[in-house]
């Protein structure tokens, strides 16, 4: 973009995807993956899955968020304004998830089957849900970027978080965790179709948000971000896993090699989806030119 085009043409957001903004993208991806894995592992009672999900949130999501901050040593200040700031709320959710998750893991390992374990499973599960969904609210609050200003975005993030969690929990199961891979695979099949539909509805409704929304969708469908959408999100994230899942369904058995391909494919899809949405976020022109 030339300097004279700034906010005269449709101007892409750059702070959360260019240069150090890549760290923000990674933090969002790992937040969804970690929280999603934790939620799914909670459902299937996979202790390893819960532990890995919890660690992904602390180390990767937390680490990338800290690395992105301009003044990381002041990170503790982020909890100070939950009244209006979704970022403050999200940080609080993360802290609560880390705390309650740790207690739940302790209970599950040393005191399984107790009331305490159940209580902390519920609380930690709620916190994990909030960690997975809050980035959607952080972004949809931004009314300057019409692509993001959609109520569907938090739904999309939680759904894809759970979907990616299913993929990761299958990986944990394959590595020896005591876990019903077939059930996870079946759930994945349903969620993949649902995610595909939700992505399509989200993009379609974004075109109604305004001219900048339409511009963002055009960028995604046939512009500079199109390869990421079609190859990363649609092919690797949806089509390939669905094909593998259907072949597994009709073959009647879960092939380990195909499952590995499906898991890697879904991870590519997870990274691609958030990258595409962040990259395609566009501000409308500032001055009221007639085209706008």
């Amino acid at each position, binding site marked *: 973009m030339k300097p004279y085009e700034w906010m005269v043409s449709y101007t892409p957001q750059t702070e959360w995807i260019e240069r150090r903004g890549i760290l923000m993208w990674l933090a969002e991806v790992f937040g969804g993956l970690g929280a999603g894995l934790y939620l799914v592992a909670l459902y299937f009672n996979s202790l390893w899955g819960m532990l890995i999900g919890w660690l992904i949130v602390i180390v990767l999501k937390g680490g990338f968020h800290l690395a992105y901050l*301009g003044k990381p040593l*002041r*990170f503790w200040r982020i909890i*100070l304004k939950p009244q209006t700031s979704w*970022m403050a709320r999200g940080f609080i959710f993360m802290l609560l998830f880390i705390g309650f998750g740790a207690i739940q893991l302790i209970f599950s390992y040393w005191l399984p089957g107790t009331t305490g374990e159940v209580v902390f499973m519920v609380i930690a599960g709620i916190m994990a849900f909030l960690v997975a969904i809050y980035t959607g609210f952080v972004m949809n609050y*931004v*009314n*300057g970027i019409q692509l993001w200003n959609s109520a569907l975005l938090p739904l999309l993030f939680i759904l894809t978080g759970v979907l990616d969690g299913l993929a990761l929990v299958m990986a944990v199961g394959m590595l020896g965790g005591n876990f019903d891979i077939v059930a996870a695979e079946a759930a994945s099949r349903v969620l993949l179709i649902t995610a595909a539909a939700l992505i399509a509805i989200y993009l379609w409704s974004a075109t109604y948000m305004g001219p900048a929304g339409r511009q963002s969708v055009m960028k995604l469908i046939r512009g500079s971000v199109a390869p990421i959408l079609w190859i990363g999100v649609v092919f690797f994230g949806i089509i390939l896993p669905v094909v593998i899942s259907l072949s597994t369904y009709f073959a009647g058995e879960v092939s380990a090699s195909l499952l590995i391909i499906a898991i890697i494919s879904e991870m590519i899809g997870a990274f691609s989806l958030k990258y595409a949405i962040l990259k395609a976020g566009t501000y409308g022109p500032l001055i009221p030119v007639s085209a706008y």
Partner: protein
Amino acid sequence: MARWGMVIDLKRCIGCYGCMLACKQEHFLPPGIFWGRLVIGETGKYPAVTKQMYPVLCNHCEEAACVKVCPTGATTRREDGIVIIDYDKCVGCRYCVIACPYQQRTFYADGSKEYFPGQGFTELETIGRELYPLQPGTVVKCNFCAERIDEGLKEGLEPGIDREATPACVNACPAKARTFGDLDDPNSEVSKLIRDRKGYQLHPEFGTEPSVYYIIR
């Protein structure tokens, strides 16, 4: 308590960039950082083409998105309507930069950038770092020259009338396109301009209630 605002007369603006440079000089802004800009666009088809020149700056909105999204409370709105940043509280998350629909905030990333790379800081840059220290790793933006306003008020001066208490960009404009004053005073120059010449805000659909108005009639 006054509510400070600005009116920019687009029929007077000649696009000289004087306001941008005055602001840069007043605040000793580092390379690449502008608190005010001149945005120029064209509309229409030849031969009926119109050039639109809009000096833009932080709108010091009443319902500022940046104030709401700031997780640390570093960005606040004063009682007099000026939206300011406490650099000691800012963590540099840049949520405010993303949230501002007018894109009038900038992340100050690199404090070592020189105007003449490889030649060290000039005397002006060195003085600027002492007089007006900005913190690298925080977000910066126009503050309506709050320090000039505050000092001026202490000395009994009137912002918008007395130059010493008026924002630098208003003083610098050779065409007197900018007017500064109290939006809550119906008899102030800014209020009269908005009323009589149908002042409008940029993109009111964002719901931010800017304190900067434009007039074109």
